[in-house]
């Protein structure tokens, strides 16, 4: 019982630090061909002519196809989340053949013997476009005068959610905070670009893909391509990060299968980074109008949220559901009487948006945490005090929020106190006052974010009630091998999270076998056939719990056999440290001995089968609710607008911790991505709808030189909704850090009249805010 909670070094590392990796692009198959896609240079146009004949006959070119060539069989890329009954879900052909609706949309392809020849032949394809007006601004898109992205118009849906009496909350409210925030469009930028290898023997198809969701992908691809599900195997080998961007059913995956089917040859496609910036789904891109009503003492009465969410040109797998994932989090950790939420999904001629780390929850947290600072200023109290007056006190858990979620556990006071001590809050406030007094060119700002989020997607019945197309369960199987080693088969699909290590820890404890004796099998629908994959900080809370439950079931089976071996009743056996011991005696059998006895099957109970496998499917009863307090100090150079993060403290409560090393790593990475939204990243389209940030020279990501060391610590309030007491940690840092940074910047500049800086807070934007 000692593995869980231990800072085990990761099992995954060995191959990753020596280059013995299995990235999808590494795969070389006999006769393999390479696909290159020609992509639309127009944001919006009718395709009047495509002539691929020029590409044929180029060296090494096997075939070239236009969208028309696939029109009959390519189907439509799926949207699994029709959030309202009257939602507009346009057809989404994997390869455009009538109209293009964003720059980068695939319009033709070449298949050649190597990637160089495929790239060359693309230049010989001729396409004529009749330009149509791009649609780039969400608010304009909703006007009657706007050109239409789709015939049905530019509105996809309006989704409403209301709790409590919002009119009463706002009636005569002495304080109303009314703000509009822009969640800029982001490009998730996993370090591994997407790659796909499709192969077939004529009957059976195998798709390797750099995906987060091999299981969901298999179901969806079967539906889209007509390849029967049982004839399709999907493998996610080593996957180099996802952050939601590989939670998708992509055009390239569909087309690779169709091409492999047509040519009877294995085909590979690997995107370049600039291709990826154009065509990996983007994240965020919302306009948030938030109104908060409060008493003169700063007690919140109600919250109105009106969102415009840019869907981009089409609805992809969960595009319309992303803002809804935030709908229930706008109230954050605060008590209030009423909540009114409206979200309108808008089509534009840009790359579709979809899940990006946090998916809806960072947006919600940003808005409420920014507004809490404004509330504090409005009534003249410290921003921490404004939060204290409104947050759910630890003795009030479990607490059902105005959004209808029941937060099972938490202790906001404890996390905040710990963070304040680590941060040196009071001392920094003194320094801030001093710099203000001296009118120093470099001003100090302090930003606070007391966040919570919902993890562990998700109770299937809740997903059903939100019209999501699938459930939120997770599956595990545990097998005890004849020599006493264990295999854990998980339906989660890690791409950096360390499941091989953490699941080994969980299983080792439950089975009483050494950590080293556990192997975790994942990411292949043939070897790990049941699963719902990895996203939404769900893997541990749902999948890890399934591993625990399956392990316990296996122990129960072994107990039956052990009892038979030792001629006692199963109830007479204690199980500890991997051994079954007859109560009150020294008589014992190790689980390894039981495993071999089962394998030999010389002496099974009458009618029993050799069966030392066990499965479990967990469908969570509730979400889990990690929380924490993040504090950020920034130095703002008021002459140039440059923002430097001076210190950053994060105290997170993610419940019980399986592996503190992994938890800390997740928090670090999450904070960095949240800071990057605050300061650096933005996908920018020009007035014609061209993406200007197609390379990493333009879409700026922070390096080690741009970030400080983060001080992280934890409080540990176990979740009560699962037997491991865990809450999930994959997105917490990202959700918390963005408002902490922007609050700090605004705090630094508030005496100079600044009350908002639009993200990313570039030096130029900060400087302009000061003018």
């Amino acid at each position: 019982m000692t593995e869980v909670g231990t800072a085990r070094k990761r099992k995954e590392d060995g191959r990753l630090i020596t280059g013995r990796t299995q990235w999808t692009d590494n795969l070389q198959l006999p006769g393999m061909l390479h696909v290159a896609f020609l992509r639309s240079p127009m944001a919006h146009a009718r395709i009047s002519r495509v002539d691929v004949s020029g590409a044929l006959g180029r060296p090494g070119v096997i075939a070239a196809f236009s969208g028309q060539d696939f029109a009959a069989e390519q189907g439509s890329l799926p949207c699994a989340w029709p959030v309202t009954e009257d939602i507009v879900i346009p057809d989404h052909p994997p390869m455009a053949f009538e109209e293009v609706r964003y720059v980068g949309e695939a319009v033709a392809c070449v298949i050649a013997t190597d990637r160089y020849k495929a790239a060359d032949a693309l230049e010989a394809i001729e396409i004529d476009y009749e330009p149509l007006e791009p649609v780039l601004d969400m608010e304009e898109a909703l006007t009657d005068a706007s050109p239409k992205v789709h015939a049905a118009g530019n509105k996809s849906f309006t989704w409403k959610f209301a709790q409590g009496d919002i009119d009463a909350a706002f009636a005569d409210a002495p304080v109303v905070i009314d703000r509009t925030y822009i969640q800029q469009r982001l490009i998730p930028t996993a370090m591994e670009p997407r790659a796909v290898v499709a192969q077939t023997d004529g009957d059976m198809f195998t798709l390797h893909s750099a995906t987060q969701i091999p299981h969901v992908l298999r179901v969806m691809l079967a539906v889209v391509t007509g390849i029967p599900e049982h004839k399709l195997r999907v493998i996610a080998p080593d996957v180099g990060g996802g952050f939601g961007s590989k939670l998708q059913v992509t055009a390239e995956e569909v087309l690779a299968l169709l091409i492999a089917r047509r040519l009877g040859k294995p085909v590979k496609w690997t995107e370049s980074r600039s291709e990826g910036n154009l065509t990996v789904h983007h994240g965020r891109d919302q306009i948030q109008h938030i109104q908060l009503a409060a008493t003169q003492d700063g007690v919140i009465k109600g919250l109105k949220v009106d969102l415009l969410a840019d869907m981009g040109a089409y609805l992809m797998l969960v595009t319309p559901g992303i803002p809804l994932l935030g709908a229930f989090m706008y109230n954050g950790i605060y008590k209030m009487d009423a909540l009114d939420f409206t979200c309108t999904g808008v089509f534009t001629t840009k790359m579709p948006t979809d899940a990006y780390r946090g998916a809806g929850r960072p947006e919600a947290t940003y808005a409420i945490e920014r507004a809490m600072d404004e509330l504090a200023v409005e009534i003249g109290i410290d921003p921490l005090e404004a939060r204290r007056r409104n947050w759910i006190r630890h003795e009030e858990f479990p607490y059902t929020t105005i959004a209808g979620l029941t937060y099972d556990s938490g202790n906001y006071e404890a996390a905040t106190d710990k963070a304040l001590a680590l941060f040196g809050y009071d001392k920094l406030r003194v320094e801030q006052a001093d710099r203000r007094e001296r009118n120093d060119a470099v001003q100090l700002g302090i930003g606070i974010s007391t966040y919570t989020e919902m993890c562990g997607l998700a109770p299937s019945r809740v997903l059903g009630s939100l019209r999501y197309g699938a459930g939120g369960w997770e599956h595990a199987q545990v097998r005890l091998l004849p020599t006493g080693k264990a295999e854990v088969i998980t339906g989660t699909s890690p791409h950096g999270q360390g499941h091989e290590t953490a699941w080994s820890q969980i299983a080792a404890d439950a089975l009483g076998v050494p950590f080293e004796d556990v192997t975790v099998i994942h990411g292949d629908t043939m070897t790990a056939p049941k699963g719902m994959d990895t996203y939404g900080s769900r893997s541990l809370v749902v999948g890890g719990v399934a591993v625990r439950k399956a392990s316990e079931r296996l122990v129960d089976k072994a107990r039956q056999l052990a009892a038979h071996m030792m001629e006692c009743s199963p109830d007479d056996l204690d199980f500890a440290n991997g051994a079954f011991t007859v109560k009150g005696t020294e008589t014992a059998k190790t689980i390894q001995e039981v495993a071999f006895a089962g394998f030999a099957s010389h002496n099974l109970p009458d009618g029993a089968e050799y069966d030392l496998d066990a499965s479990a499917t967990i469908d969570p009863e509730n979400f889990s609710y990690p929380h924490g307090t993040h504090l950020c100090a920034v130095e703002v150079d008021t002459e140039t607008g440059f923002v430097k993060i001076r210190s950053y403290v994060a105290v997170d409560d993610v419940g019980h911790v399986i592996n503190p090393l992994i938890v800390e790593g997740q928090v670090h990475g999450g904070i960095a991505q949240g800071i990057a939204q605050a300061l650096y990243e933005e996908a920018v389209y020009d007035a014609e709808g061209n993406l200007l940030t197609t390379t990493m020279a333009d879409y700026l990501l922070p390096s080690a030189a741009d970030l400080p060391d983060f001080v992280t610590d934890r409080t540990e309030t176990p979740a009560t909704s699962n037997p491991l007491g865990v809450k999930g940690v994959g997105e917490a840092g990202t959700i918390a850090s963005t408002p902490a940074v922007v609050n700090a910047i605004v705090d630094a500049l508030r005496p100079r009249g600044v009350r908002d800086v639009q993200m990313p807070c570039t030096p130029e934007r900060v400087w302009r805010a000061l003018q």
Partner: protein
Amino acid sequence: MIPASFDYIRPVSIDEAAHVLGNAGDEAKVLAGGQSLLPLLRLRLAYPTTLVDVGRLEELRGIRDEGDHLFIGAMTTHDEVMRAGAIREHAPLLALAAATVADPAVRHRGTFGGSLAHGDPAGDLPAVARALDAQFVIRSMEGERSVGAADFFVDYLETALGPGDLLVGVRVPKLGQGWGFHYEKFRRTAQAWAIVAVAAAVRRDNGVIQEARVGLTNMGTTPVRATAVENAVRGAAVDNGGLREAANEADDGTEPPSDLHAKPDYRRHLARVLTFRALTLATPTPPPA
């Protein structure tokens, strides 16, 4: 992404390189370290028919002390420039600027001459070359000629190098005693290009600025010499507002570009602020009495 096809020639001498380039026509490109050129080829923003690889010509490499100036071979890498004793002693501004180019791996491959020949006004070395009045030594089949920095940078990504020309190296005049140097680079992230940068060399005597050289990065289609600042700062006392006043002339006559990271008015503002900082940090402190 993948470059289009090209022919590849690796001459073994400057003479051969000049000959090859002279006969290769307009579409030939000189390949030095490739750190600017290869990304352009990969993005298919350039389609040379022939690359003439001079990266290994030892004749083009290294730093020579030639009395009143240093000669820096065009194929000397940024890494070598930032470490070379002769440069640190006689032209430290070059070392300071070279150390800010891209990142260590790029500095190992990227060359001094390649970077200057690329003619990118956002590059770090062109402004320094302007500030130091470097002379560019160019070989072609017609022979050798020398072009001053003021004439070398012609327009955006355009230099005095024509087809058939090879940049052999750069002569950098040594500045005498009493000079101080600073390269003030402003960028959004560590490896990003400069939004604006200022290269400053300042000579001080008796608490007064005797002379200054100021070059501006990314304030126009070419690197710019801030002559108005240089004139204004001459004779300014170090410890009154003279430096700031002079720095306010920094954007005089410039036409800064507008791009994703900055609009022209912000660049003008930055030029003034950064010039003041560069002048201040470049100004040598007198030895304690």
